[in-house]
């Protein structure tokens, strides 16, 4: 009996060690895969392009140079897909797909595709969304001067690097444009996605015969969680005031606000699993090995994680919610903020994904 259990223990230890080394190997290979994809992309660029795409790792200005706005309103640095040759563009997308999970990559493409629809359809005067008792929309005689470059389109997304791609030293990959800002820090085996902004307008469209909702999961899973709460939990989760926009959007780095709403420690197992499901919509954008580490961290934090909701508690079937929600924990801030602009808030959303303790991978890169 004793010898048997010893044997079992030994076998278990060996298996555990094997598993651990496999995991390490996998983590290493994730980073090396990403680095080689990055170097491949960089090798397709000419000197001038390479210069404009590479920034110093400590370039604070470029690090924070991201936004939800179209690129003509907030110009990005680096080079965009439109300026690239077909080979370069393919290498850029290959790099993106190596650093993201399949679903993350798909989500990013759907956001970009949505902007292509903006380019093709958005030609009429803007809907004012003037349902708040505000003054009439601006006179058409004093419109903004944005030059005559294109505003929307799936090729108007920029890529930039902070630091040189390396398996050991920390570096950052930025990819973004209108409604998208991926800030990915790679530091050895660590991959960090925060802060990242996703958004969608239209939040629902048809592409190649299929209905696409780039941020549909973010909306539906959160609503399902809200519906799974009982009356007293709802009372805590639903805030009695309007939340017009992201609180910790672009430019709001390094802030930790007081959490509000319903604490997950007061949720049952099913509700907690649902909450993790909502969180995974953001946490799983990055490649699987980094996402697994991140999800484990967020799962461990669950008792200290809050869920808050503001706005309508129902949604039209098949459409996104029109309510704001926030998930906040010791290492997490997620905000989902529908935008009134365009008239239908279910069609336009901005979201934010942060780790107040580890935005830009600070935890792994601090010297």
């Amino acid at each position, binding site marked *: 009996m004793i010898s048997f259990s010893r044997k079992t223990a030994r076998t278990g230890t060996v298996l555990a060690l094997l598993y651990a080394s496999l995991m390490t190997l996998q983590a290493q290979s994730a980073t090396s895969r990403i680095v080689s994809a990055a170097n491949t992309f960089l090798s397709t660029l000419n000197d001038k392009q390479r210069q404009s795409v590479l920034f110093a790792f400590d370039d604070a200005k470029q690090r924070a140079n991201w936004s*939800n*706005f*179209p690129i*003509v*309103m*907030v110009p990005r640095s680096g080079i965009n897909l439109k300026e690239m040759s077909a080979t370069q563009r393919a290498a850029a997308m290959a790099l993106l797909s190596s650093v993201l999970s399949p679903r993350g990559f798909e989500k990013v493409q759907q956001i970009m595709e949505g902007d292509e629809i*903006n380019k093709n359809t*958005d*030609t*009429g*005067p*803007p*809907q*004012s*969304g*003037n349902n*708040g*008792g*505000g*003054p*009439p*929309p*601006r006179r*058409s*005689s*004093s*419109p*903004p*001067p*944005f*030059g*005559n470059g294109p*505003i*929307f389109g799936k090729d108007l997304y920029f890529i930039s690097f902070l630091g040189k791609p390396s398996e050991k030293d920390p570096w950052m990959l930025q990819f973004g444009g*209108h409604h998208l800002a991926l800030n990915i820090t790679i530091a050895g085996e660590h991959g960090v996605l925060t802060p990242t902004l996703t958004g969608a*307008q239209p939040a629902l469209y048809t592409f190649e015969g299929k209905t696409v909702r780039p941020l549909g999961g973010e909306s539906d899973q959160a609503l399902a969680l809200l519906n799974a709460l009982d009356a007293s939990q709802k009372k805590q989760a639903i805030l*009695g*005031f*309007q*939340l*017009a*926009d992201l*609180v910790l959007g672009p*430019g709001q780095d390094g*802030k*930790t*606000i*007081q959490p*509000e709403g319903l604490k997950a420690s007061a949720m049952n197992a099913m509700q907690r699993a649902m909450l993790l499901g909502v969180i995974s919509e953001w946490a799983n954008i990055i490649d699987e090995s980094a996402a697994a580490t991140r999800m484990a961290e967020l799962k461990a934090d669950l008792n200290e994680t809050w869920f808050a909701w503001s706005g309508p508690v129902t949604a039209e079937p098949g459409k996104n919610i029109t309510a704001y929600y926030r998930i906040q924990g010791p290492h997490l801030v997620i905000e989902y903020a529908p*935008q*009134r*602009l*365009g008239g239908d808030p279910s069609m*336009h959303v901005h979201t934010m994904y942060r780790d107040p303790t580890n935005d830009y991978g600070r935890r792994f890169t601090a010297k």
Partner: protein
Amino acid sequence: MSKIFPIVVVLSLVVPASAHRVDEYLQATIVSVERDRVQFSMRLVPGIAVSSGIIATIDTNRDGIISETERQTYAQRILADLTLSIDGNPLQPQLISAVFPTMEEMKQGLGEIRIEFIASLPAGGTNRRLTLVNHHQSQIAAYLVNCLVPSDPEIRVLAQHRDEKQSFYELDYVQSSASVAPYIRCLSSLRGWTGAVGFASIFRRGMHHIADGTDHLLFLLALLLPAPLLLSGSRWAGFAGVRQSLLQIFRVVTAFTIGHSITLALAALGAMHVPSRPIEVLIAVSILVSAVHAIRPIFPGGGAGIAMFFGLIHGLAFATSLGHLELGWWQRVLSILGFNLGIEAMQLIVVAATIPSLMLMSRSRLYSPLRIVGALFAGCAATGWILNRLLNMHTSVDLIVDALAHRAVWIAGGLFLSSLVCGLRYRITDQSFRRYLLTLMGGL
């Protein structure tokens, strides 16, 4: 600008449709509460459809440029549209900085005005309520107000209340001074207690509380310093004898316990509510008084009466924070009972750790200087706390006392060793004392 960019082009661009809110004036405020002041940082973004109106309000001379004077005037105008108060008393915000975007950015509905301002907070109680009402451009405003998690660990946010538009914002927080902090921390943590956690954990919290409440302990220790001594007129004389000392110590500790239990119980039942500031000051005064008493006896009867009186005050320190405990009546009683028993247990541990040493040493001539040094230390700490709490003066008392408290076990151990040395060095003649010493050694 239409001169430069033909209207035809501009119309076909239709930027705002995918940009941002157009017809609203976003005003997002972040509140940051500190010990004696509160900081505000405000972002104001007029949407494209309303920006011309806002620009007209800012650029009063309509020269197309926002001058320094116009910036200051507009920033002050924003401040004038705010109503700020703490605990119901109005606060005067002071402008720190005002950064304006370019005229172009504003016209595009992208311009972000950033203003920062502060207000200094007058001294107040433990429980504070900050109110911010924003009326600025309320017709078109979309307000957001949030507070940062306070960087000062002594400040804890209890609740935030807002009206539907977030025009009205109220922040409830506890600001503990060094002395009250452990009380508040313990009591606030009771909020989450619903009865399931149990008596044991509340008991442990009580123990932690007194172990952390350095001023509470200092009072008790100062009071115990002369306890083994005989009162001779207006001076402290030699050792009073084992029996007499133990009796005296028992009286002091019991009187103190009865005192703070009474007020604690009254507070638990919601029977009294006293502002915390004077209590904090009085607690510091109590230490000063017992320190003086340890040097020269100022109270007859060895201090049991004064222990009782100040016990009442120490118990009151709980009272201020109890008002915010949303517990049922029975839960309160149970919590307070457990909490109080925890306090007593820890108190007994402290007494058990120090009294044998004090009694041993009180036999020797070295006790006089030790007693006076100890009393002087307590007196200095008390004075520091009084200055701190009464006049808002910053002193390093907390730092020093906390540093010592963290080494309490070592200090108690050192005290005991030196008391043993004293006991051996100065011949022990008293039979009863020798017996006591032997019992003590046997016990170890």
